[in-house]
Structure formats: C-alpha cells, structure tokens
C-alpha cells in the first residue's frame, strides 16, 4: 500500500534523554481502523514513543509520516529539530491526544474545552463547533455537564470530556497516553467503554495502556516494548495467547 493512504507511519525512531537511550529504533504502521496497543513496564519507552508521534518529544532520528506527509527535520547546533513548526502544528492538529492527566484547560467550561481547538486552530465557526461539540458530549454521556468547569467533574468525566475534545478535531489518528491510569478503579470502565465504541466505529487509534483486557479484546495489533525496543509484536491472540518472549510471559503474569 502506498504510504499516503496510511494514516500514520513511524520508522526507526530513536530518542535519548541526556545520552540515555530511551527509544532504540521503533517503527509502527497504523492503517485505517487499526487499534494499536503499546504495552510494557514503566520506563520501557511506550509513552515517549507515543509523544514522539505528535512531536511533543523530538526524536533524535527516524521518520514520522502522516498520510504521506513526512515531518521535516533539520539539525541546529547538533540538535535535531523540526524544520517547519507550522508543519508540526498542522500535523498535531490531525493527531489528537488524550492524556493520562486529562489536561483539560481549567479556566474553560467543558464545552469551551471541546470547541477551543476547532475554533482557534482549525478556524471553524463557533456555532458549527458548538453543535458538533454538543453531539460529542452527548456521545460520551456528558451533555448535561457542558457548562461545568473541569474542577467540578470527576476524573472519569474529565477524561470522557477530554476524549470529546479529541474527537472534535476529526482526527485521523487518536493517540491515547495511559488514559485510565489516573482514574479510580470504578471510573475506568466508563472511559474504556467509550474507547471500545470508538474502536468499533473504525477510528484509528494508538493506545499506551496497562489495561490488558482492553489491549487483548480491542486492538488489532499489540506491541510489547522493553527498554526502548520492540520485544514482541503481533495480533493480540498471538501476543497474549502464545507469547514467545520470556519477558512478555513474566509481564503478562499467570492470567494470560
């Protein structure tokens, strides 16, 4: 398949912090409708990998290609950096991210959060953005909370609101960075339910997660990272059902 038909291609990504290598040659291809789960222990580099995809971290080497558009880099004073920040902003707007800590803008109401980027980044009209936003809040079950401020919502509500904010961008790929890790156990279910629905309707998603049930049941592909390298990757039934790596077996524990 030609590159420009694939929503997100990442090739041979390297990243180190102060000479500590964190990512050592990671690649990934997210095709239309793929749900790719990144699993691994803390410090395995999965969050950094995800954050490189929308350039929140700048990889030291490797390519990021969104629907055929390759992120351009240059080297300045020995540091690699994007050659064109406008391009980075454009690409970021096509890959919405959902954060572990929600990161809703605290001084805006929930609906304000949802319409913010569509209006001020994509240049949509307020009216259009509001209508879309209300429909999305309805979807995630928060229509009656539209005028609440984030601090007035529970963690689960905030995260579902953050998902609505991500959806409002009509993203080509959604990046989830441990979306349920900061939630009380009884609130995790609501968020996972919304994510399952998104997967079912064919959203392209890359998900860093510790929710193994979600990774097994929902993903089309699972990548197990260990110390910045892919230790094992494949279809969930293979990765969970028949792991070949000893480390992965240990990581998964006796349940799988």
């Amino acid at each position, binding site marked *: 398949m030609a590159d420009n038909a694939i929503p997100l291609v990442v090739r041979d990504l390297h990243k180190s912090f102060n000479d500590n290598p964190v990512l050592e040659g990671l690649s990934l291809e997210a095709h239309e409708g793929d749900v790719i789960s990144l699993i691994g222990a803390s410090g395995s580099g999965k969050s950094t990998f995800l954050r490189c995809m929308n350039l929140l971290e700048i990889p030291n080497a490797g390519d990021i290609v969104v629907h055929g558009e390759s992120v351009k880099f240059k080297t300045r004073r020995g540091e690699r950096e994007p050659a064109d920040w406008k391009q980075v902003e454009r690409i970021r707007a096509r890959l919405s991210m959902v954060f572990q800590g929600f990161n809703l803008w605290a001084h*805006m109401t929930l609906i304000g959060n949802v319409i913010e980027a569509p209006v001020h980044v994509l240049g949509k009209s307020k009216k259009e953005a509001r209508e879309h936003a209300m429909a999305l809040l309805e979807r995630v079950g928060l229509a009656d909370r539209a005028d609440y401020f984030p601090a007035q919502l529970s963690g689960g509500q905030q995260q579902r609101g953050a998902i609505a904010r991500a959806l409002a961008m009509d993203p080509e790929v959604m990046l989830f960075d441990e979306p349920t890790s900061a939630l009380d156990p009884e609130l995790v279910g609501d968020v996972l339910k919304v994510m399952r629905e998104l997967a079912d309707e064919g959203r392209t998603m890359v998900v860093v997660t510790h929710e193994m049930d979600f990774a097994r049941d929902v993903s089309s592909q699972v990548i197990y990272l260990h110390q910045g390298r892919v230790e094992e990757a494949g279809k969930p039934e293979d990765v969970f059902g028949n792991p070949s790596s000893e480390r992965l077996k240990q990581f998964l524990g006796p349940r799988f």
Partner: protein
Amino acid sequence: MEHWLAQVAPFLSHNTIFTPATLAAYWGGMVTTVQLVFISLVIGIVLAIPLAIGRASHRVWISGPIWFYTYVFRGTPLLIQLYIAYYGFAFIPGVQQSWFAFFINNALYPALLSFVLNTGAYTTEIFYGAIRATPRGELEAARAYGMSSFTAYRRIVLPSALRRALPAYGNEVIFMLHASAIASAVTITDMTGVAYNVYAEFYSPFPPFIFVACLYMALSFGIQGVFRLAEKRLLRHLKPA
C-alpha cells in the same frame, strides 16, 4: 448621654474637618489620589503583561534585562525613586530649555513616572509567577492540539495566569493606593497632602490625619469589594461544584 454630648459639642463646633472649605480640599485631594493611582495602575499593567511574558522567556537577553528592572525597582524604596524622578531630572543641564521641561515643571509627571515603574515592576513579577504556575499539562495539551506559541499564550496561558494573579494583584492595588501618600512629599496635594495642609493651618493633627486614614480605608474597602466580585466571577472554575 446628654452629659456626654454636651462635653463633645465644643470640639465639634470648631473642628477642622467639616467646614465647607476643608471638605472641598479633601475632595480635591481624593480626586488627585484616585487619578494618580488609577493612571499608574493602568499604565503599569499595560507595561507588565508583555514584560511578564518576556520575563518567562528562556532567552536570557530578553528575560535578563527585565529581571534587572524588576530587581532594581522592587529593591529600592519608592520614595527614593520619586526623589530621583522629581529632583534628579531637574538637575540635568539644559533640561529647562528642552521639550522635556513640562516633565519637571509639574510634580505630577515625576510622581506618575516613578509610580508606573514601581507598580510595573511588582505587577510584572506577580504575572510572571502566575505564568510560571501554568499547569504543564495544559500547555502541553495546547501544543498537542496544534496551537502556535502565540495562540497558546493568548488562549490558554494568559487567561489562566491573569485569573490566578488576581488576588495578588488586588493586594498590589491596595499597596499602591497607600504608597501614593508619598506623592505629598513632592508638593502634590493628594489626600495626605491635604491632611497635612489642614494640620499645618489649624495645628491640629488628629482630626485631619484620622479623617484621611478613614478615607484611605474606605477606598481600600471598595477596591477589596471589586476584587472579591471579580474573583468570584473569574475564579469560579477553581471551586468544586
């Protein structure tokens, strides 16, 4: 009660506060004080917002000079700054013949200059602190959604920081109101200046000084009320439901 009133009556009959002439003078002083403080604060805030943004810059050639400015003006007494502006500039040779003469011929201008630079320095630091306290994640979300630095500042960082700075800035306003009393040291008849004149005329310290103290208190009370209302409105997002 009657006995008490009879005792107080002589004092009231030749008091120095409630004569029409002094009341008019107090009113004039209050107008001067309010104008001086208000104009200083408005210019100070206009100055402080860009300076605070610059102070938060990681480029040292931008943040360094701003740090130096706030350090100097917060590190020295306002009275000294006022004296330098009022007495100092007048000593520059040839200044009387230059276009700058208007500045030294009216004490209001040196007072305004020193007040503006002083409140500007404090306000810069207040806003800078608030900008630095922007939750990292909120800024990260702004970037992740494709906002440019400019848009992120305009839509996320500043609205959130200026709200957060509101209580501290309210203190600065009250502080400035009280500090403005030293304008009377350079011939300006603000509230304190009027009180001093009344005292000097009648040689009676308590009534005029206590009266203007009450006026300052009333103004402070009003300012606090305005800020309380503003905080209630603009900081409601920080309150749980």
